[in-house]
Protein backbone atom coordinates (compact mmCIF):
# COMPACT_ATOMS: atom_id res chain seq x y z
CA UNK A 1 0.00 0.00 0.00
CA UNK A 2 2.77 2.38 1.04
CA UNK A 3 4.61 1.65 -2.15
CA UNK A 4 1.50 2.35 -4.26
CA UNK A 5 0.91 5.61 -2.37
CA UNK A 6 4.56 6.56 -2.88
CA UNK A 7 4.29 5.90 -6.63
CA UNK A 8 1.10 7.95 -6.82
CA UNK A 9 2.79 10.86 -4.98
CA UNK A 10 5.78 10.79 -7.31
CA UNK A 11 3.48 10.67 -10.36
CA UNK A 12 1.44 13.62 -8.97
CA UNK A 13 4.50 15.78 -8.40
CA UNK A 14 5.96 15.06 -11.87
CA UNK A 15 2.58 15.87 -13.55
CA UNK A 16 2.29 19.26 -11.81
CA UNK A 17 5.84 20.20 -12.80
CA UNK A 18 5.19 19.32 -16.48
CA UNK A 19 1.99 21.38 -16.36
CA UNK A 20 3.94 24.34 -15.05
CA UNK A 21 6.46 23.89 -17.85
CA UNK A 22 3.68 23.85 -20.45
CA UNK A 23 2.12 26.97 -18.92
CA UNK A 24 5.42 28.81 -18.89
CA UNK A 25 6.13 27.97 -22.55
CA UNK A 26 2.56 28.95 -23.39
CA UNK A 27 3.03 32.38 -21.77
CA UNK A 28 6.28 33.05 -23.66
CA UNK A 29 4.57 32.01 -26.90
CA UNK A 30 1.70 34.39 -26.18
CA UNK A 31 4.05 37.30 -25.68
CA UNK A 32 5.82 36.44 -28.89
CA UNK A 33 2.52 36.12 -30.75
CA UNK A 34 1.11 39.35 -29.33
CA UNK A 35 4.26 41.26 -30.07
CA UNK A 36 4.76 40.98 -33.88
CA UNK A 37 3.11 44.32 -34.56
CA UNK A 38 6.01 45.87 -32.66
CA UNK A 39 9.00 46.65 -34.86
CA UNK A 40 12.15 44.62 -34.46
CA UNK A 41 14.16 47.54 -33.12
CA UNK A 42 11.70 48.17 -30.31
CA UNK A 43 11.87 44.60 -29.23
CA UNK A 44 15.62 44.79 -29.19
CA UNK A 45 15.56 47.88 -26.98
CA UNK A 46 13.19 46.10 -24.61
CA UNK A 47 15.71 43.33 -24.30
CA UNK A 48 18.46 45.92 -23.75
CA UNK A 49 16.42 47.56 -21.02
CA UNK A 50 16.10 44.29 -19.20
CA UNK A 51 19.81 43.76 -19.55
CA UNK A 52 22.12 45.14 -16.89
CA UNK A 53 24.50 46.99 -19.24
CA UNK A 54 22.85 49.65 -21.40
CA UNK A 55 25.60 51.59 -23.21
CA UNK A 56 23.38 53.27 -25.87
CA UNK A 57 21.29 55.01 -23.20
CA UNK A 58 24.39 56.14 -21.37
CA UNK A 59 25.69 57.72 -24.62
CA UNK A 60 22.45 59.40 -25.63
CA UNK A 61 21.84 61.15 -22.31
CA UNK A 62 24.95 63.39 -22.33
CA UNK A 63 24.24 64.31 -25.98
CA UNK A 64 20.79 65.53 -25.06
CA UNK A 65 22.27 67.44 -22.13
CA UNK A 66 24.87 68.97 -24.40
CA UNK A 67 22.12 70.17 -26.71
CA UNK A 68 20.22 71.67 -23.83
CA UNK A 69 23.32 73.29 -22.39
CA UNK A 70 24.74 74.68 -25.66
CA UNK A 71 25.58 78.21 -24.52
CA UNK A 72 25.44 79.51 -28.08
CA UNK A 73 22.02 78.11 -28.99
CA UNK A 74 20.30 81.48 -28.52
CA UNK A 75 23.03 83.23 -30.50
CA UNK A 76 22.73 80.68 -33.32
CA UNK A 77 18.97 81.09 -33.49
CA UNK A 78 19.25 84.89 -33.53
CA UNK A 79 21.79 84.75 -36.40
CA UNK A 80 19.60 82.31 -38.32
CA UNK A 81 16.57 84.59 -37.99
CA UNK A 82 18.60 87.79 -38.57
CA UNK A 83 17.26 88.99 -35.22
CA UNK A 84 20.01 91.47 -34.41
CA UNK A 85 18.42 92.86 -31.28
CA UNK A 86 18.01 89.30 -30.01
CA UNK A 87 21.61 88.55 -30.95
CA UNK A 88 22.77 91.55 -28.92
CA UNK A 89 20.89 90.28 -25.86
CA UNK A 90 22.13 86.70 -26.26
CA UNK A 91 25.75 87.80 -26.70
CA UNK A 92 25.50 90.03 -23.65
CA UNK A 93 24.15 87.12 -21.60
CA UNK A 94 27.26 85.09 -22.48
CA UNK A 95 29.52 88.04 -21.71
CA UNK A 96 27.95 88.39 -18.28
CA UNK A 97 29.32 84.91 -17.53
CA UNK A 98 32.69 85.54 -19.19
CA UNK A 99 33.61 88.96 -20.52
CA UNK A 100 36.65 87.54 -22.34
CA UNK A 101 34.56 85.36 -24.68
CA UNK A 102 35.76 86.27 -28.17
CA UNK A 103 32.88 84.50 -29.97
CA UNK A 104 30.33 86.53 -28.01
CA UNK A 105 32.28 89.77 -28.49
CA UNK A 106 32.41 89.08 -32.24
CA UNK A 107 28.66 88.38 -32.34
CA UNK A 108 27.90 91.46 -30.25
CA UNK A 109 30.01 93.61 -32.58
CA UNK A 110 28.15 92.38 -35.64
CA UNK A 111 24.79 92.79 -33.87
CA UNK A 112 25.66 96.47 -33.30
CA UNK A 113 26.78 96.82 -36.91
CA UNK A 114 23.52 95.46 -38.31
CA UNK A 115 21.60 97.85 -36.08
CA UNK A 116 23.41 100.80 -37.65
CA UNK A 117 26.07 101.32 -34.98
CA UNK A 118 29.42 100.81 -36.73
CA UNK A 119 31.42 102.58 -34.03
CA UNK A 120 30.09 100.24 -31.33
CA UNK A 121 30.72 97.31 -33.70
CA UNK A 122 34.35 98.30 -34.12
CA UNK A 123 34.72 98.81 -30.36
CA UNK A 124 33.65 95.24 -29.59
CA UNK A 125 35.59 93.73 -32.49
CA UNK A 126 38.74 95.56 -31.40
CA UNK A 127 38.10 94.41 -27.83
CA UNK A 128 38.00 90.82 -29.11
CA UNK A 129 41.24 91.43 -31.01
CA UNK A 130 42.88 92.83 -27.89
CA UNK A 131 42.16 89.50 -26.18
CA UNK A 132 43.40 87.46 -29.14
CA UNK A 133 45.30 89.57 -31.70
CA UNK A 134 45.60 86.56 -34.04
CA UNK A 135 41.88 85.87 -34.35
CA UNK A 136 41.35 85.71 -38.12
CA UNK A 137 37.58 85.51 -37.75
CA UNK A 138 37.40 88.82 -35.92
CA UNK A 139 39.79 90.43 -38.44
CA UNK A 140 37.47 89.22 -41.23
CA UNK A 141 34.56 91.04 -39.64
CA UNK A 142 36.59 94.13 -38.84
CA UNK A 143 37.46 94.25 -42.55
CA UNK A 144 33.76 93.83 -43.38
CA UNK A 145 32.78 96.78 -41.17
CA UNK A 146 35.68 98.85 -42.57
CA UNK A 147 34.54 98.10 -46.12
CA UNK A 148 30.97 99.12 -45.34
CA UNK A 149 32.34 102.39 -43.95
CA UNK A 150 33.76 103.04 -47.42
CA UNK A 151 37.42 102.28 -46.64
CA UNK A 152 37.95 99.54 -49.20
CA UNK A 153 41.75 99.67 -49.24
CA UNK A 154 41.97 99.10 -45.49
CA UNK A 155 39.49 96.24 -45.80
CA UNK A 156 41.52 94.62 -48.59
CA UNK A 157 44.68 94.81 -46.46
CA UNK A 158 42.91 93.08 -43.55
CA UNK A 159 41.31 90.39 -45.75
CA UNK A 160 44.67 89.68 -47.37
CA UNK A 161 46.25 89.22 -43.93
CA UNK A 162 43.56 86.69 -43.03
CA UNK A 163 43.69 84.94 -46.41
CA UNK A 164 47.45 84.40 -46.34
CA UNK A 165 47.40 83.28 -42.70
CA UNK A 166 45.44 80.14 -43.72
CA UNK A 167 42.94 78.30 -41.55
CA UNK A 168 39.19 78.07 -41.77
CA UNK A 169 38.55 81.80 -42.06
CA UNK A 170 40.94 82.25 -44.98
CA UNK A 171 38.26 80.92 -47.36
CA UNK A 172 35.86 83.67 -46.29
CA UNK A 173 38.64 86.25 -46.70
CA UNK A 174 39.47 84.99 -50.20
CA UNK A 175 35.80 85.09 -51.21
CA UNK A 176 35.51 88.65 -49.94
CA UNK A 177 38.71 89.64 -51.77
CA UNK A 178 37.50 88.12 -55.04
CA UNK A 179 34.16 89.90 -54.82
CA UNK A 180 35.86 93.18 -53.95
CA UNK A 181 38.22 92.95 -56.95
CA UNK A 182 35.31 91.96 -59.22
CA UNK A 183 33.34 95.05 -58.23
CA UNK A 184 36.50 97.11 -58.92
CA UNK A 185 36.94 95.26 -62.26
CA UNK A 186 40.57 94.47 -61.41
CA UNK A 187 40.46 91.13 -63.21
CA UNK A 188 44.16 90.31 -62.77
CA UNK A 189 43.63 90.38 -59.01
CA UNK A 190 40.40 88.39 -59.37
CA UNK A 191 42.29 85.65 -61.21
CA UNK A 192 45.04 85.60 -58.56
CA UNK A 193 42.58 85.30 -55.69
CA UNK A 194 40.41 82.79 -57.59
CA UNK A 195 43.41 80.51 -58.17
CA UNK A 196 44.16 80.57 -54.45
CA UNK A 197 40.54 79.84 -53.49
CA UNK A 198 39.58 77.21 -56.09
CA UNK A 199 35.97 76.59 -57.03
CA UNK A 200 35.32 73.70 -54.64
CA UNK A 201 32.69 74.20 -51.94
CA UNK A 202 31.88 77.70 -53.13
CA UNK A 203 28.17 78.26 -52.62
CA UNK A 204 27.60 81.99 -52.76
CA UNK A 205 26.16 83.32 -56.01
CA UNK A 206 28.42 86.38 -55.95
CA UNK A 207 31.58 84.30 -55.61
CA UNK A 208 30.52 81.87 -58.34
CA UNK A 209 29.93 84.89 -60.58
CA UNK A 210 33.38 86.29 -59.75
CA UNK A 211 35.03 82.92 -60.42
CA UNK A 212 33.23 82.79 -63.78
CA UNK A 213 34.59 86.23 -64.69
CA UNK A 214 38.08 85.05 -63.70
CA UNK A 215 37.63 82.03 -65.99
CA UNK A 216 36.67 84.37 -68.86
CA UNK A 217 39.92 86.29 -68.37
CA UNK A 218 41.79 82.98 -68.56
CA UNK A 219 39.83 82.17 -71.77
CA UNK A 220 38.25 79.15 -70.04
CA UNK A 221 34.82 79.87 -71.45
CA UNK A 222 33.29 76.45 -70.78
CA UNK A 223 34.34 76.64 -67.14
CA UNK A 224 32.87 80.14 -66.96
CA UNK A 225 29.57 78.85 -68.37
CA UNK A 226 29.52 76.01 -65.87
CA UNK A 227 30.06 78.39 -62.95
CA UNK A 228 27.42 80.84 -64.19
CA UNK A 229 24.95 77.98 -64.61
CA UNK A 230 25.65 76.89 -61.03
CA UNK A 231 24.92 80.42 -59.87
CA UNK A 232 21.77 80.65 -62.00
CA UNK A 233 20.49 77.42 -60.45
CA UNK A 234 20.45 79.27 -57.14
CA UNK A 235 19.11 82.59 -58.43
CA UNK A 236 17.63 82.10 -61.87
CA UNK A 237 16.38 85.68 -62.28
CA UNK A 238 19.53 87.46 -61.10
CA UNK A 239 20.02 90.25 -63.63
CA UNK A 240 23.81 90.51 -63.23
CA UNK A 241 24.20 86.77 -63.81
CA UNK A 242 21.96 86.86 -66.89
CA UNK A 243 23.87 89.81 -68.36
CA UNK A 244 27.22 88.12 -67.70
CA UNK A 245 25.92 84.95 -69.35
CA UNK A 246 24.76 86.94 -72.39
CA UNK A 247 28.18 88.63 -72.59
CA UNK A 248 29.91 85.25 -72.36
CA UNK A 249 27.73 83.74 -75.11
CA UNK A 250 27.78 86.70 -77.51
CA UNK A 251 31.17 88.38 -76.99
CA UNK A 252 33.37 85.43 -76.14
CA UNK A 253 31.71 82.19 -77.33
CA UNK A 254 29.97 83.78 -80.33
CA UNK A 255 27.00 81.55 -79.65
CA UNK A 256 24.12 83.53 -81.11
CA UNK A 257 21.27 81.18 -80.13
CA UNK A 258 22.27 80.98 -76.48
CA UNK A 259 23.06 84.69 -76.37
CA UNK A 260 19.65 85.56 -77.77
CA UNK A 261 18.00 83.26 -75.25
CA UNK A 262 19.56 85.16 -72.35
CA UNK A 263 18.89 88.55 -73.94
CA UNK A 264 15.21 87.64 -74.32
CA UNK A 265 15.07 86.62 -70.68
CA UNK A 266 16.69 89.89 -69.60
CA UNK A 267 14.22 91.90 -71.72
CA UNK A 268 11.30 89.92 -70.31
CA UNK A 269 12.39 90.55 -66.71
CA UNK A 270 13.23 94.21 -67.32
CA UNK A 271 16.57 95.95 -66.99
CA UNK A 272 17.77 98.47 -64.44
CA UNK A 273 18.25 101.89 -66.05
CA UNK A 274 22.02 101.98 -65.39
CA UNK A 275 22.43 98.65 -67.19
CA UNK A 276 20.43 99.51 -70.30
CA UNK A 277 23.58 100.54 -72.20
CA UNK A 278 25.10 97.06 -71.75
CA UNK A 279 21.94 95.38 -73.04
CA UNK A 280 21.74 97.76 -76.01
CA UNK A 281 25.37 96.94 -76.90
CA UNK A 282 24.67 93.21 -76.57
CA UNK A 283 21.66 93.50 -78.88
CA UNK A 284 23.93 95.20 -81.42
CA UNK A 285 26.45 92.35 -81.09
CA UNK A 286 23.65 89.81 -81.58
CA UNK A 287 22.47 91.67 -84.66
CA UNK A 288 25.96 91.73 -86.16
CA UNK A 289 26.34 87.99 -85.47
CA UNK A 290 22.99 87.41 -87.22
CA UNK A 291 24.16 89.45 -90.21
CA UNK A 292 27.42 87.49 -90.35
CA UNK A 293 25.43 84.26 -90.33
CA UNK A 294 23.22 85.48 -93.16
CA UNK A 295 26.29 86.49 -95.22
CA UNK A 296 27.83 83.03 -94.68
Amino acid sequence: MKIILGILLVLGVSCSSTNQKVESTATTDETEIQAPAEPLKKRKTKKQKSAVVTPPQEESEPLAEEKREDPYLGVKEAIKNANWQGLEGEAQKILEQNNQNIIALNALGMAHFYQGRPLAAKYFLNKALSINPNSSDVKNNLAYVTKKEGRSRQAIILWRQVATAGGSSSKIAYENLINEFTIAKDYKKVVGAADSLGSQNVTSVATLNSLALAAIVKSEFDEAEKLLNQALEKENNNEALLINMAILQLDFKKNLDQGRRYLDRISFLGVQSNRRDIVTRLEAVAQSLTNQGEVK
Partner: protein
Amino acid sequence: MLEIATPFVKKAGEAYLLVLQRSSEFETYTPAVNSARELLVKMDPQAVPYEKGQLGIEYHRVDWMGLSL
Protein backbone atom coordinates in the same frame (compact mmCIF):
# COMPACT_ATOMS: atom_id res chain seq x y z
CA MET B 1 39.73 112.38 -85.83
CA LEU B 2 41.70 115.48 -86.71
CA GLU B 3 45.41 114.95 -87.22
CA ILE B 4 46.19 117.73 -84.78
CA ALA B 5 44.29 115.88 -82.01
CA THR B 6 46.07 112.55 -82.49
CA PRO B 7 49.04 113.10 -80.10
CA PHE B 8 46.72 114.44 -77.39
CA VAL B 9 44.35 111.52 -77.71
CA LYS B 10 47.30 109.13 -77.59
CA LYS B 11 48.60 110.84 -74.46
CA ALA B 12 45.13 110.64 -72.86
CA GLY B 13 45.01 106.91 -73.60
CA GLU B 14 48.40 106.42 -71.94
CA ALA B 15 47.23 108.40 -68.91
CA TYR B 16 44.05 106.31 -68.57
CA LEU B 17 46.07 103.12 -68.78
CA LEU B 18 48.45 104.42 -66.14
CA VAL B 19 45.49 105.18 -63.87
CA LEU B 20 44.36 101.54 -64.13
CA GLN B 21 47.85 100.20 -63.51
CA ARG B 22 48.42 102.40 -60.48
CA SER B 23 44.99 101.68 -59.03
CA SER B 24 45.71 97.95 -59.27
CA GLU B 25 49.16 98.43 -57.77
CA PHE B 26 47.83 100.40 -54.78
CA GLU B 27 44.52 98.51 -54.64
CA THR B 28 42.68 101.81 -54.57
CA TYR B 29 39.52 101.88 -56.63
CA THR B 30 37.89 105.27 -56.74
CA PRO B 31 35.13 106.57 -59.04
CA ALA B 32 37.88 108.35 -61.04
CA VAL B 33 39.40 104.94 -61.84
CA ASN B 34 36.05 103.73 -63.16
CA SER B 35 35.77 106.80 -65.37
CA ALA B 36 39.28 106.23 -66.69
CA ARG B 37 38.43 102.63 -67.56
CA GLU B 38 35.19 103.58 -69.31
CA LEU B 39 36.95 106.25 -71.38
CA LEU B 40 39.83 103.94 -72.24
CA VAL B 41 37.42 101.22 -73.42
CA LYS B 42 35.67 103.76 -75.66
CA MET B 43 39.00 105.01 -77.01
CA ASP B 44 40.78 101.68 -77.44
CA PRO B 45 38.80 98.51 -76.63
CA GLN B 46 41.90 96.35 -77.15
CA ALA B 47 43.66 98.07 -74.22
CA VAL B 48 41.30 96.28 -71.79
CA PRO B 49 40.49 93.12 -73.77
CA TYR B 50 38.27 91.38 -71.24
CA GLU B 51 36.18 94.39 -70.30
CA LYS B 52 32.78 93.98 -71.93
CA GLY B 53 30.68 95.44 -69.16
CA GLN B 54 30.60 92.32 -66.95
CA LEU B 55 28.92 92.89 -63.62
CA GLY B 56 30.10 91.98 -60.16
CA ILE B 57 27.71 91.31 -57.29
CA GLU B 58 28.19 93.35 -54.14
CA TYR B 59 28.41 90.72 -51.43
CA HIS B 60 30.77 90.05 -48.55
CA ARG B 61 30.60 87.19 -46.11
CA VAL B 62 30.47 87.67 -42.35
CA ASP B 63 32.52 85.34 -40.17
CA TRP B 64 30.26 84.00 -37.42
CA MET B 65 33.01 81.78 -35.98
CA GLY B 66 31.01 78.64 -36.67
CA LEU B 67 27.78 79.92 -35.12
CA SER B 68 25.69 80.26 -38.27
CA LEU B 69 23.21 77.37 -38.52
